[in-house]
């Protein structure tokens, strides 16, 4: 009884034969058996294997959301009436893993399920009618779904014959998951879940015969597993990733962390004096060293640095950037910041900045104690702000207290994220939307924590969401970018990433900088696409 995890895969490939198993890891702790694909709390979601069983109608590339999706279970789709109507053509010849064919009825049922169960309708899509005829499914929506179009197309399909028997689909753990994907469940333990290849699949069968998902208790354990090769694919924050991971096997250990359209930055409470002054916020932006944050706080890969002054991550959002900001990249410019401040009436006396009323400018930066990358970022920001005489202090709050403070607008500034989506709309909406603005002290907001009040921005957001043509949308987005650059309601630092750490020792064909066919994160829908593209190394 002396089997050793580290040599697990090499035994499979030792005899010169190619690998058959792919070891995927996530740092999410012991799991309980729950294969319900709707539930973020399920082991399927937590480890990502739900996407190996349940497939979407259309495969959208998460890092290139503006590209048209790849037909998957739907062969064709058509939006009409300013994105309030969608007609889908469903692929023929697809079978579920229990052998039953997948039909348009299953697709319609999958939508109906979401419409009927608020808990399962995670994106709150305002479904209207859902009709099905032949291999066609038609949907209507009560509002324009331009901004949600990808979310609707990426909906996965569940078998009606199984799900209609569930008493409460919200709470079923779906012990026998049945889907159209190429894998089926082999075994489940709290530590690991194993999937095996199905006999038949509507596409060419993947080369990976068995997928082994292991759940490590924490980042440390996951990192160790990655470093020693027990884990071949994972998404985890690894400090000093070069030393800890890559250098362990420079040939094969790879990190690729492409950005998506969601960002992280320093949110500033725009109601507090003197931070209600955009000049001050712009000056702060000018001195905050995004590169240091990227390198030191995010280990050089985790939240890719945002280069553009508009806060739109590149390359994912490259195409959205307004012409006037196309080449404007952020750079630390202390003198520029000082000039800006001087123009706005601030005075730098010694190393203390005084606001126009003569009061020294101080700021408290706050984030939960446990979030080491954010706290590290704050340490850096604190240091940066001191170059223009702002005295910052860092408050490592209790997580709940911090949530409450942000919710009620009771903070000076702190690192926080924005929503993400197919377009930069989600980012800006989250930062500037006047419709979700609540006064300081009142909670329940789900965005605009900085209480940024700009009717102009609100109008532009509204226009973007409901515009009927691309030109109007572009115009609205350009307006938003301009507001962002001029007002700086938040100081962007890094983009969210949907990347991964992986090893090419046994498997090749991973997405990377050169071949960006999918985001690399194993818990994303696109993971299936990756698995389908993997080939044994050396084969």
């Amino acid at each position, binding site marked *: *009884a002396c089997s050793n*995890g*580290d040599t697990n895969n090499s035994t499979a490939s030792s005899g010169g034969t190619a690998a058959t198993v792919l070891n995927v890891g996530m740092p999410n702790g012991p799991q*309980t058996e729950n294969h319900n694909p709707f539930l973020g709390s399920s082991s399927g979601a937590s480890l990502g294997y739900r996407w190996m069983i349940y497939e979407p109608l259309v495969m959208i590339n998460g890092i290139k959301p503006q590209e048209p999706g790849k037909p998957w279970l739907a062969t064709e789709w058509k939006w009409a009436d300013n994105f309030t109507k969608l007609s889908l053509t469903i692929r023929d010849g697809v079978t579920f893993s229990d052998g039953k064919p997948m039909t348009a009825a299953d697709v319609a049922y999958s939508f109906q399920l979401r419409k009927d169960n*608020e808990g399962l309708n995670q994106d709150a899509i305002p479904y209207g009618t859902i009709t099905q005829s032949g291999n066609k499914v038609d949907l209507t929506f009560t509002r324009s779904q331009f901004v949600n179009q990808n979310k609707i197309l990426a909906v996965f399909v569940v078998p009606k014959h199984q799900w209609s028997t569930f008493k409460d689909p919200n*709470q079923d753990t779906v012990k026998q998951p049945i889907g159209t994907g190429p894998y089926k469940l082999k075994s489940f333990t*709290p530590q690991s879940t194993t999937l095996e290849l199905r006999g038949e699949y509507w596409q060419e069968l993947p080369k990976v015969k068995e997928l082994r998902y292991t759940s490590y208790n924490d980042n440390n*354990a996951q990192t160790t597993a990655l470093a020693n090769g027990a884990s071949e694919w994972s998404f985890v924050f690894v400090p000093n990733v070069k030393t800890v991971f890559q250098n362990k096997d420079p040939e094969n250990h790879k990190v690729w962390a492409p950005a998506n359209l969601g960002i992280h930055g320093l949110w500033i409470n725009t109601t507090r004096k003197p931070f209600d002054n955009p000049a001050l916020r712009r000056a702060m932006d000018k001195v905050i060293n995004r590169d240091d944050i990227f390198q030191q706080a995010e280990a050089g890969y985790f939240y890719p640095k945002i280069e553009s002054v508009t806060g739109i991550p590149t390359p994912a959002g490259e195409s959205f950037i307004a012409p006037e900001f196309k080449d404007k990249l952020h750079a630390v410019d202390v003198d520029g910041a000082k000039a800006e401040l001087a123009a706005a009436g601030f005075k730098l006396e010694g190393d203390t900045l005084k606001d126009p009323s003569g009061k020294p400018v101080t700021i408290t930066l706050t984030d939960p104690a446990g979030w080491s990358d954010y706290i590290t970022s704050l340490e850096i920001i604190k240091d940066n702000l001191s170059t223009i005489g702002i005295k910052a202090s860092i408050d490592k709050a209790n*997580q709940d207290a911090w949530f409450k403070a942000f919710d009620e607008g009771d903070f000076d500034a702190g690192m926080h994220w924005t929503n993400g989506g197919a377009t930069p709309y989600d980012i800006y909406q989250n930062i500037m939307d006047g419709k979700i603005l609540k006064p300081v002290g009142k909670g329940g907001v789900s965005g605009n924590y900085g209480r940024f009040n700009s009717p102009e921005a609100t109008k532009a957001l509204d226009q973007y969401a409901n515009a009927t043509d691309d030109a109007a949308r572009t115009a609205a987005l350009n307006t938003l970018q301009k507001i962002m650059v001029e007002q700086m309601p938040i100081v962007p630092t890094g983009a969210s990433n949907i990347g991964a750490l992986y090893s090419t020792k046994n498997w090749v064909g991973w997405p990377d900088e050169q071949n960006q066919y999918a985001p690399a994160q194993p818990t994303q829908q696109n993971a299936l696409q990756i698995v389908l593209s993997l080939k044994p190394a050396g084969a």
Partner: protein
Amino acid sequence: MKFLLQRIAFYLFTAWAAITINFFIPRLIPGDPVTSLINKFQGQMSTEAIDSLYVLFGLDKDASVWSQYVDYWGQVFRGDLGLSFTFFPTPVSDILGQSLPWTIALVGITTFASFVIGTGLGVLAGWRRGSWLDGLLPVTTFLSSIPYFWLGLIAITLLAGQGSFFPSSGGYEPGLVPSWNSEFIGSAVQHSLLPAVTILISSVSGWILSMRNMMVTVASEDYITVAHAKGLSERRVMVSYAARNALLPNVSGFALSLGFIVGGTLLVEIVFSYPGIGYNLFQAVGAKDYPLMQGVFLVITISVLVANLIADIAYLLLDPRTRKEG
């Protein structure tokens, strides 16, 4: 008999108090599970998704605390501990059922081993005062003053490197399915060695010390001198007279210290990524998953209570003086 009845009354009361505390603690917690999930999915969860979670978890309903309390008792009696939020909708009892054996196997066995080894060494150290065993004391004291987690992490770094015999995490080989075959059990044992040794090192000193002190105290009792005077063999005097009597206070100490040990477990499980109940608690606290938190806390408390009951009974059997009739 009376002693036992008193103890049972005490256990019932304590169980009630613990279960009640258990009910109130989560309700005093300001955060809620959804915000914690948001944290977990930093930035990857839309605002709309958050609202749907509230509905999903049934947090949009309001009920009076009293009716919740009554419901809660009903649930406790039915063995229904509710559904976990972190692993929604898995029942808490399933999660606990899955992790409890690990904790019991690791901590239970190690604690017992530590008790036995520590007591044994303590007996010798107390009996042969001034021998080399006394030199052991400062060393074990130092070792037990090291925080569990620190010792564990150092052990992992030094001993569980690449290609080492000791795995650095988990309860068994990933990919194995728990079952009663030699491969699995071997793997489980192999995975438990390092954490077990860590626990042993940090907890054994307490037993050595208290046993030694008790031995020293007992060794000067008259009946020990009489035992010597009777010309019994040294071993018999040490075991049957001195150690047997010195053990008594340690038995109750053993039960009471379980609470501390369970606390320590949590750290060992965190550090060694061991799939036990302590780690569940850690997860539950992080995720504000109060059904799970309640469940874990309940299980811990009840098991400490049960251990106490067992220790009481053991004490009853070991010490005839408490067995008074009437």
